């Protein structure tokens, strides 16, 4: 899994460097030679450029939204003095609230602790279970959206597949869907990872009570204990 992630990062970094004109001449020559000879490399680079262009276009669309809102802003009314004083006081009180120590940095905690559940099927898949094979290949290579599509196409998915579905949803930031997938898992062998990943989904959703509920029982776990304690003590 990490090897695939590193390969992607290495390749995407190269694309980025070339796209932004940050390569030395000799690097650029080698890159362009590779582009001309390797169809897959060329296709991946095109996907990178298209993805970037898409993001930039979304950014511009957001900027247009601001322009529209500015242009159509309603004139402000003249509030009575008393209301103005109350508004200022309310803003000051809110400011004081934000100065007090805040809840744990959930996003950073999530990033620190989230790793995907390992593929336990790899050596045991029946050659006829094509959907499962494909799903696991996508999962292993980090293509979670495709993995979800393939896992969903499996008839009568068992709890292990539900776990992979939940982890995949969490990997792409869909924490509510992740909780829905993980919640019904009954297999006792999967209880610890179930609690762990639901806990992480609740962390991402800023639900501290739920995080405590799910992770508290993992403090004694060999695999998840350290992580659970770290999150619960923050």
């Amino acid at each position, binding site marked *: 899994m990490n090897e695939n992630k590193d390969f992607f990062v290495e390749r995407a970094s190269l694309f980025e460097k070339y796209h932004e004109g940050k390569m030395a001449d000799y690097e650029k020559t080698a890159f362009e030679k590779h582009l001309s000879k390797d169809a897959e490399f060329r296709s991946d680079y095109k996907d990178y450029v298209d993805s970037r262009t*898409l*993001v930039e276009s979304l950014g*511009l*669309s957001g900027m*247009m*939204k601001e322009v529209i809102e500015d*242009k*159509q802003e309603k004139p402000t009314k003249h509030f009575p003095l008393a209301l103005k004083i109350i508004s200022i006081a309310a803003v000051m009180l809110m400011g004081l609230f934000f100065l007090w120590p805040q809840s744990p940095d959930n996003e950073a905690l999530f990033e620190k602790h989230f790793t995907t559940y390992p593929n336990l099927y790899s050596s045991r898949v029946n050659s006829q279970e094509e959907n499962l094979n494909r799903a696991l290949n996508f999962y292993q290579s*980090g293509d979670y959206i495709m993995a979800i599509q393939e896992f969903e196409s499996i008839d009568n998915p068992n709890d292990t597949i539900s776990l992979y579905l939940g982890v995949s949803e969490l990997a*792409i930031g869909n924490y509510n869907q992740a909780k829905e997938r993980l919640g019904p898992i009954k297999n006792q062998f999967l209880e610890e990872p179930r609690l762990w990943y639901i806990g992480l989904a609740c962390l991402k959703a800023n639900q501290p009570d739920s995080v405590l509920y799910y992770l508290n029982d993992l403090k004694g776990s060999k695999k998840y204990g350290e992580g659970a304690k770290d999150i619960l003590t923050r």
Partner: protein
Amino acid sequence: MIPKKEHILSHDPRVQKEALEAIYDYCFPKIVSYIGNRKEGHLEAGDILQDAVAVVYQNIRSDTFEGKSSINTYTLSICKKLWLYRHRSESRVQISDINDEMMVGEEKEAIVRLDLLKKVTDRLSTDCQDLLKSFYFRKSSMDEIAKKHKLGSVQAAKNKKWRCLKVLMTIVKSFKLDRDDFYL
């Protein structure tokens, strides 16, 4: 200001914003008039214009827009096509008297680009969209991104950026595989 493609592609947000304001001033009243001057018409005109600007940007980047017409009239044509596409099943759709600057192929391309935009905004988490926009559109540093998105460290921000980019690229690749008319 008369907006030109260099303004749209500028890295200076003030220049981009000024160009967008000029596009708004030209296009918005015409779109509202075309749709029908009701409150819902104003809201829809705003949505259409936002989508159109994204499509125009992609067309400029991919050299589809050759600059034969002005950015204003080109954007207006795209707005009209997108509105027609939205309401294609309705009998009230009427022929416009707005000058049509777009060829048939470009019209299809605009719709394909819009479909891809919608797919991305549906499937890519808001977190990821915001982070990628911060990096690639607003050109924020990793340090600024780590602070804004509460990621704790520059390394965590980089990890998240790569993860989000990978998901986005998967969406784009899967969209291309599903559509045989995709030719960005």
